[in-house]
């Protein structure tokens, strides 16, 4: 039996990723956007929204409107991660600000 050419092996290896990208749906994108929106609301409630979060969120919504659901999911995930970071920052600062205070 002849060994498979390297190019063919590489192509076969990429198949699952391609299949996953093709699996992105409107419902999935909307779910990712809703999840990011919840985190963004939590960050806003803590008075600590980042511009980068909102930029990623706007990109997610724009991609979703264009029908690029994979890009929408990716951008929404990024927005969610940034919102998580801002929430963590606000929580840390609840105690840490006192260490910066002049006394």
């Amino acid at each position, binding site marked *: 039996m002849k060994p498979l050419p390297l190019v063919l092996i590489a192509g076969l290896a990429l198949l699952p990723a391609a299949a996953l990208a093709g699996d992105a749906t409107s419902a999935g994108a909307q779910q990712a956007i809703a999840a990011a929106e919840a985190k963004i609301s939590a960050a*806003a409630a803590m*008075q*600590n*929204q*980042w*511009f*980068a979060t*909102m930029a990623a969120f706007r990109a997610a919504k724009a991609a979703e409107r264009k029908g690029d659901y994979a890009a929408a999911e990716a951008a929404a995930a990024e927005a969610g991660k*940034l919102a998580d970071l*801002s929430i963590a*920052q*606000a929580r840390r*600062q609840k105690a*840490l*600000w*006192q260490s*910066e*205070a*002049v*006394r």
Partner: protein
Amino acid sequence: MRIGLVVLALLAAFSAVPVALAGAGPDPAADIKAFQGHFRTELPAIPLAAYVNGPYNFPGSGRAQWKQITEFPPYSFAIDSGKVLFETKFPNGKTYTSCFSEGGIGIAGNYPMFDPKTGRVVTLGVAINRCRVANGLKKWPLTKGKMADLVAYMTVTSRGRPIDVVVPNDPRALAAYEAGKEYFYSRRGQLNFSCASCHVQAAGKRLRGNVLAPALGITASFPLYRSKWGSIGTLVRRFIGCNKKVGSVPDKPDSAAYRDLAYFLTAMSNGLPIAGPGSRP
């Protein structure tokens, strides 16, 4: 011997509790003393009253240009416009003098003040808008335009008078003061900066082309004509700009967060003279 040590440790622990509790509440007078003391220790060459000149106390800040600018100050048009606005009668025949103590002259140093009726901090801009609404007019935006002009006029009538922000012994006032203090020292935005990062810890140092103004006296020259803006703007306009610079979405101009921040920050400069309106790069 061991029991004795345990008893001693317990006594020490319990005796420390009242001290800790006593020190836990807001103490504006102690804060002001510490705040002003910090700058006088860190930057002893600057006389206390000169802190109102912000970055111009430091080399490389363009002090000579600033001195020349003040001969024909760019905010003079705002003062003139503000005077006209101040003296123009409302449709009901009253003017702004009806809303303020001393007829609104020489009172800028008392703002922000705590309003016991609403339990909220009132900045001069918010007080002007209250006056407008009480006399059947619409509110103005708090950041620039006619509001900044009117604040400029009311501030120039207060020039040289000491800042005298009162934090009464009212739990709501103390809570607002403490919230402003927390805001000032809390890091925020993607760059992880607090107000204090620049204006306490790096006061007098350079951030790119600018010399950072010390927090002490920083509110005394507002409203400001900024060359960057090409117009005059209020303190809250600057708060919004600072928040944006560190990657943080700003609060609304009339938010409790900005009112409380102005309350704390202005109180720290109690005793320093009003110097506004001012001009900055």
